[in-house]
């Protein structure tokens, strides 16, 4: 949790001039021309790709719609705002963890923490055919599934699939048996996708555990014993706002407590 920021009117006046190394950008800020035109080809090419947090205006200018850090690819033809939030907004290709909430003849209804329930076709599993339906027949309600967002647009409820479309294989998608699942911010989830993330690396040195990370801010952990799983879960939760140093000592102290 961010600590309160204290300001007195005296220092507010220079708020606008507030400077720092990173380019923090707020809604309503225009994409600075210096940045969007520093490389020739951008000026030529009218289209630069806009990632999350940026919107084109009616007058061709580009404006930020979220608070965060302005980022761009080296070639400066793709721009986005790196920001953190809790609420998941699906976009296709992302891996998410969903909880099964319902089932119709041709679909499972999953809660993936988005505004709308996501639909998973009963056939959207590896090697599923009309004959051999996937094994989730019995009572699937409440099960955890690791899925891929197949289709997401604002007009429709998102649709999921439990296999990698390129390979057609499960590639780790499917039911998550046992273990525990908990919520983290989407920012932390994104970082955890990288298995070399500090906290995961540190924990890995002491405890063997499996993990599945959903971009939708759900993290699944499983290990030999409940106490281990609990430790890992809490370590990851705590790590969110810790500097590398603080993170190490945090993990160390937890390990010692065991």
């Amino acid at each position, binding site marked *: 949790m961010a600590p309160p920021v204290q300001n007195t009117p005296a220092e507010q006046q220079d708020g606008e001039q507030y400077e720092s190394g990173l380019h923090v950008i707020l809604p309503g800020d225009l994409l600075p021309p210096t940045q969007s035109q520093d490389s020739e080809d951008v000026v030529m090419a009218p289209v630069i790709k806009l990632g999350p947090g940026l919107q084109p205006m009616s007058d061709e200018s580009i404006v930020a719609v979220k608070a965060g850090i302005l980022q761009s690819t080296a070639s400066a033809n793709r721009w986005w705002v790196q920001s953190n939030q809790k609420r998941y907004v699906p976009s296709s290709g992302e891996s998410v963890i969903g*909880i099964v909430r319902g089932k119709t003849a041709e679909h499972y209804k999953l809660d993936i923490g988005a505004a709308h329930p996501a639909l998973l076709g009963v056939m959207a599993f590896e090697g599923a055919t009309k004959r051999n339906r996937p094994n989730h027949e019995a009572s699937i309600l409440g*099960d955890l599934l690791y899925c891929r967002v197949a289709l997401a647009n604002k007009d429709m409820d998102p649709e999921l699939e439990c296999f990698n479309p390129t390979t057609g294989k499960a590639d780790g998608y499917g039911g998550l048996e*046992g273990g525990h699942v908990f919520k983290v911010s989407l920012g932390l989830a994104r970082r955890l996708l990288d298995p070399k993330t500090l906290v995961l690396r540190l924990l890995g040195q002491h405890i063997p555990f499996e993990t599945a990370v959903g971009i939708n801010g759900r993290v699944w952990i499983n290990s030999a014993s*409940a106490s281990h799983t609990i430790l890992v879960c*809490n370590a990851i939760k705590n790590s969110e706002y810790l500097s590398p140093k603080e993170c190490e000592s945090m993990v160390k102290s937890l390990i010692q407590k065991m």
Partner: protein
Amino acid sequence: MKDTEPSKNEREFLLEALREGARIDGRKFYDFRTLRISFGSDYGAVEVQLGNTRILAKVSCEVIRPYADKPTEGFLSFSTEISPMASTVFEAGRQTDEEVLVSRMIEKAMRRSRALDTEGLCIIAGEKVWSIRVDIHFLDHDGNLADAACIAAITALMHFRRPDVTVVGEEVTVHPIEQRNPVPLSIHHIPISVTFALFDKGERMVVDPTYLEEQIMEGDLALTLNVHKEICALSKAGGMPLELEKVVQCSKIAAVKVQEITEQIEAALAADKKKR
């Protein structure tokens, strides 16, 4: 918005952990979460944090006419409407069962147990008495709203000061707190509620359940006591039966908890008093 059930995995894991003697947030069975008590600038405003559960209690008062049949009795009322801020489960103006339970608990703990001396609120018998109002605002819901609300309410009442009054015959003058030192309420005793969540037919019990624990528990047992080990209220929700010695055991544990929490409240009040 409707409440979302926890997944099978969470349910099974939580129970498995309990059977291994562990709770998901790393607590022991009979540990409360860290309790933080902070006071607003004016009297009778208290913010209580129990882990991630967060509550604001605000006491206010006004002079009104007493009931004819209780001419010397002041009023004490609580508003416990749960704000959607605590969780989208709660809708503005629509009462949930949880809300009913919490408000009943506060009623029992505070009014029925006569924690506040309402006779002491009389100004002129049959004419004017103080009416004390406690608004309890639920800001963040991570389980055990009842205990947190109870702590917030009693702490706020102890912190509150009402304006001083002088009575000359029928004439009543209320002195603004800037002009004359305001008067604390007379509190008879400090009721504290301790809630146990029950699992495995009562085989396992934990105090101060989190939201997840509440969703999965089979029932709960709430005891309200004061430091003198007087039980002000006892309520057991959930279908499954519970042997008497369990209840006794709970009350023993609760007594200890009440001691701790009461000391913490008094320490916080003392610290605040110094600051003023």
